[in-house]
């Protein structure tokens, strides 16, 4: 952290990280965790070789479905489904 911002202090949470702010141990922890994220991202393409779900991962990847989207408007297939269902309900 730069002193430009006037403080190198980190927020102390009850039961949170202990030790002096900016200690080498903490930075090493962050670096290790980030390294793990990078490794995970690099290994992600191997998901299609996972036993059991590999072929399904490949189908979903190739289909381009927004698997992680949490709201209907972010998933184009929902609009497709709505079009497909048009007229199904006689009250439409």
């Amino acid at each position: 952290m730069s002193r430009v911002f006037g403080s190198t202090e980190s927020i102390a949470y009850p039961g949170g990280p202990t030790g002096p702010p900016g200690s080498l141990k903490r930075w090493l922890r962050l670096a290790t965790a980030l390294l793990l994220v990078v490794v995970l991202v690099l290994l992600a393409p191997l998901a299609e070789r996972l036993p059991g779900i590999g072929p399904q991962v490949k189908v979903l990847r190739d289909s381009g479905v927004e698997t992680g989207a949490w709201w209907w408007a972010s998933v184009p297939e929902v609009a497709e489904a709505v079009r497909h269902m048009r007229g199904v309900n006689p009250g439409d």
Partner: protein
Amino acid sequence: MATNVSAIPEERPSEWSLMLRGEDWWSVWLGMLLLAIGMLIFLPRPPADLDAKIEKLSATMKSEEARAPFRTIAYWETEGALNRMRARDAEPGKTIGTYLATTARWKDSPLEAFYLSEADAAKRAEAAKPRREAALAKQKTAKEKAKASEDAAAAAGFKDAALNDAARTAIADWRAVKIPSAPKAHNYLPGYLVVGIGLMLFWALGNKVMGRGIGQFMLAFPAVFLLTILAFAIGNQVDIRAMGFSSVLWSIFLGMLIANTVGTPKWIMPAVQTEFYIKTGLVLLGASILFGKIVLIGIPGVFVAWVVTPIVLVLTYWFGQKIVKLPSKELNMTVSADMSVSGVSAAIATAAACRAKKEELTLAIGLSMVFTAVMIFAMPALINGIGMPKWFDGAGEVLAGAWMGGTIDNTGSVVAAGELVGRTAMYTAATIKMIQNIMIGVVAFGVAAYWALKVERERSGTAGRVDLTFGAAAGEIWRRFPRFILGFVAASIVFSILYDAKGAEWGKVMLEQGVLGGWADPLRDWFFGMAFVSIGLATNFRELAVHFKGGKPVILYVCGQTLNIVLTLAMAYLMFFVVFFPLTQRIMAM
């Protein structure tokens, strides 16, 4: 979310003062301001001759529907033309869309999330050419076959059931061919600069009028914004995305990594404004809750999505209080809503309505993400394993779709699971989920009212002292009610009325593919992205562990989801195969 929900001052500022200075009201004002700007940008610029085109294309579709007992090639081509009309494709919507984009999908090189040169895009397009050409050839052959089948059915006056079925299948096969899009060059970096500065000024305005300092906020904002971009980039890696581990998870995770290793630097904290981002984002989200869509697949859809869901929600909450004995009512409600309604969206809305703690929302979202990642693969495996799609002469796909749509948490995951079963299953699942999504407005309103009238009164010791008259109860609700929920509901009502008044086709072109799709939705994604990063930056592993004690939230989730799975299957069977089977047959005949 508040850190101490019970701390409600008896002496509160006047409503006028809250309207001028309070965060809840300013979330409403800013959300409404953005929606008004979106309407000013898109509504005066409809595609040329929009009404006439809608009328003409709709008439063609109607006549095609009357001509044959199945949807013909001409019907789908006309529908495609209607669907290609989008208000956001015209300027300035088009440019705004490119600036508001988050990151691109990428496979091997993370840099491609932000930048792909013309030369590299051309190389990618060249490499993808054989696959694309093969798909185009397959589509051409499928269309020829569909045309021949339709002609044969037409020659028999559409009276031969076998020929009609053959034509329907051939047309479905033609429509199922997906053409891979050609990679395009992109550079999101200028967009980040514009959006970053724009959002910083936007939030600074809110902070300023609420009497908060903006200097420290403006120094801190870029850090939160950059972490949000990083989370979007990781969540857009194609394999990670396919498994459902979206940017929501990465936003929280990256924030938590910093908070729990080196500690969140104090200078970042002025921009860690979780509640403000979420409340404003919820007002924008409200605009896409369109009540007219509830009856899309008639009464069966309403029963599966709107009858089972509240039953499961109430029973799970009761189970959490009486049997599991979760210490926090807010955590109980957030997990119950997240599991029974619609995953992350319900968790956000409910947590905000009952003022849950950040750790509680994090826990609910984490549980949802993990169980959803399992269910994406487990439910289709079970459904395909027992041969459900083939039940009832193939109509079992509707049952499978309704089952998945009512139980799997997030819309994207529902569509993914449906994709692993079949097109009809996917369409049914996606529709049920969308109808269920609409429910979050009602749930958030109900939870906020329940908390105001019961939970918070009990905590403040005023409950039970006197029996409340209707007027007094209404006054009590109003006094404690989170005001931003009013903005959330008002946005939904305004856009639902507009949608119904101008017609579904106009609504699709001008609202869904204009004000919302081209403006409010991408802004909402940014707001929630920053909110999730903020949650992570303010979440402590040990505090999270306290809420996780004894695995109680997991027990609650598993028991609630088991009930959800059983009830949804029973209701879907009852509705689609016992009471309204003709409607199921119509779905299959589309």
